[in-house]
């Protein structure tokens, strides 16, 4: 009975940790789908989102679950500027350039944040800290339930946006065939900006959830989650959003399982080991779209 309890606990914490990776991974996937770039600086948007949430919460005391809207909005603007000024001039000049550009962005965002907020580790306490709700044999913190619900709401909203609205349809068209989309009169550059901003907003939401869940953050924390998000979208298949969701859950569970059985040092390394195994064995991912 005790073993099953621990097992459930690991799965549950994995689910909860997975939420942040799912949001980050979905954002990356969205940007990759439309623009065919993978931004290594995506984790920095998570970091900025985390700091915005923490700052607003500490100064005004507004519930951080409401601040999520503000941080998403702020990151949408930052994302639009970054796309317009940095990525658009070099789009199509080679994949290596895009990697190097994101390195420049990493330098700017990490140290810019360090200039504003300092470089020490920080954390804040959620207003619902300590409240737990019994679910079956487990007692689950209220924050976990809110975080999982919030992630689900954001994903459903994204799904509806992509399926039902005009811009969403244009984004899917661009992602399927950029030239074809141009031919039927879609302004692909506008779609680029919108999808980049949306991806950034999802990263900001992930940042807010990171802070609210009581995890520590500093300006340099973004680079590890982003590579984990890469691992997830490769696990799930590039461009596949359901794949990113399942990949995120698997990653969260694997990470927490390893941390429990092998010790906390291995928490980061395990995601890269998974990434390498997936890349070597099945580069298209578990749910990868077949290339035509």
């Amino acid at each position, binding site marked *: 009975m005790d073993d099953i309890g621990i097992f459930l606990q690991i799965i549950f914490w994995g689910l909860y940790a997975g939420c942040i990776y799912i949001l980050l991974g979905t954002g990356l996937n969205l940007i990759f789908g439309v623009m065919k770039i*993978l931004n*290594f600086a995506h984790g920095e948007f998570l970091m900025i989102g985390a700091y915005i949430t923490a700052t607003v919460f500490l100064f005004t005391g507004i519930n951080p679950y409401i601040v999520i809207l503000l941080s998403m909005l702020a990151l949408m603007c930052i994302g639009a500027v970054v796309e317009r000024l*940095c990525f658009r*001039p*070099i789009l199509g*000049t080679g*994949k*290596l*350039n895009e*990697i*190097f*550009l994101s*390195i*420049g*962005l*990493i*330098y*700017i965002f*990490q*140290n*810019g944040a*360090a*200039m504003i907020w300092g*470089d020490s580790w920080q954390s804040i306490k959620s207003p619902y800290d300590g409240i737990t709700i019994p679910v079956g044999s487990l007692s689950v913190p209220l924050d976990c339930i809110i975080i999982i619900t919030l992630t689900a709401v954001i994903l459903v909203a994204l799904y509806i946006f992509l399926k039902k609205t005009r811009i969403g349809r244009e984004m899917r068209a661009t992602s399927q065939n950029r030239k074809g989309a141009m031919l039927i009169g879609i302004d692909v550059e506008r779609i680029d900006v919108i999808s980049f901003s949306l991806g950034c907003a999802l990263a900001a939401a992930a940042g807010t959830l990171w802070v609210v869940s009581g995890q520590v953050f500093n300006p340099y924390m973004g*680079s*590890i989650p982003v*590579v984990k998000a*890469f*691992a997830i979208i*490769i696990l799930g298949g590039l461009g596949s959003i359901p794949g990113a969701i399942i990949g995120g859950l698997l990653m969260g569970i694997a990470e927490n399982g390893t941390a429990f059985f092998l*010790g906390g*040092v*291995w928490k*980061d*390394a395990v*995601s*890269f*080991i998974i*990434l*390498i195994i997936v*890349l*070597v064995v099945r*580069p298209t991912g578990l749910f990868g779209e077949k290339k035509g």
Partner: protein
Amino acid sequence: MNFRYYDLKRFGLAGAIIIAAAMPFLSDNMFLLNLLTLMLISIIFASAWNLLACSGQGSLGHAAFFGIGAYASTLIAVQSGLTPFITIFLGAAVAAFIGVLIGLTCVKLKEWFLAMVTFGFAIIVQTLTVSVLAPITGGWDGMASPRLLSPTIPGYQLIEYYVILVITIAVIIVIWYILKSRIGLAFLAIRENEIEAQAAGVDPVRYRLIAFAISAYLAGVAGALQIHHIGYLTPELYSVDNSLWPITYVILGGLFTIAGPVIGTIVLTIIWEGLKATGLTFGRYVIVGFILILTIIFLPKGLVNLPERVHMWWKERGRKEMPDGLQQ
């Protein structure tokens, strides 16, 4: 205009070697000498990264090879009592061996995927160093490393500088020779168009592995030199920051060129140390980030390309001054 910018290359090369050799005599400042030594090591590191990039593989985890070279060399020196002058090359061989293993993992991967795997690899190596291997590596605390030359020798820093200068020049000559040879041509072919290269009889897997081995070896040499120069090593060697520096140097100087890493390292080191005087801490990195992005957008071939760009601009300018009818 009698001045030809092609002459820059010849004069630049001769001038650079003379200045590098004479530098310690211009100033007997120990701080400056130390800085120059570290700069030479960065040049080796950046050149090693650039060699791998020449075969079309942009690594984001070169700190792994840098660190493996340093750790292996130190451990061999401590265990066997050999002088660091020999263990540098043995430690680098360990880095090259691991480099081939990583290369084998990456044979089918390109661009983003390669970048991610190498990035993750540096973190895996760091994790191994501080967990499983902690009893021999000293974990997070690191360990003392034998000095290249004992500090009791008079003028040991000066000798060290010249030793490292000779190694740096040797490394650059080796890289120049490799890039000029058939191997270099094969790298170029793979980088530009892999399918065509294959059709022309170039085996991409083989040359990718060669690039990984040589690049990891040279990065290992750089790591071992740095650690024997400083005399202490920590797992910080594997940090992301350390992986990104050579990339920044090469991009600024000029990707895929031999002079690029050298010029990039020198210019950026001067900027970096100059900014130190202004008292900025994080601001320096922000400025480096802006320099990197501006270089990628406005000077994609790096500073090496600058004289040519100025030359072209000069010629264009002359043409525009002509009457309209003569332009075409």
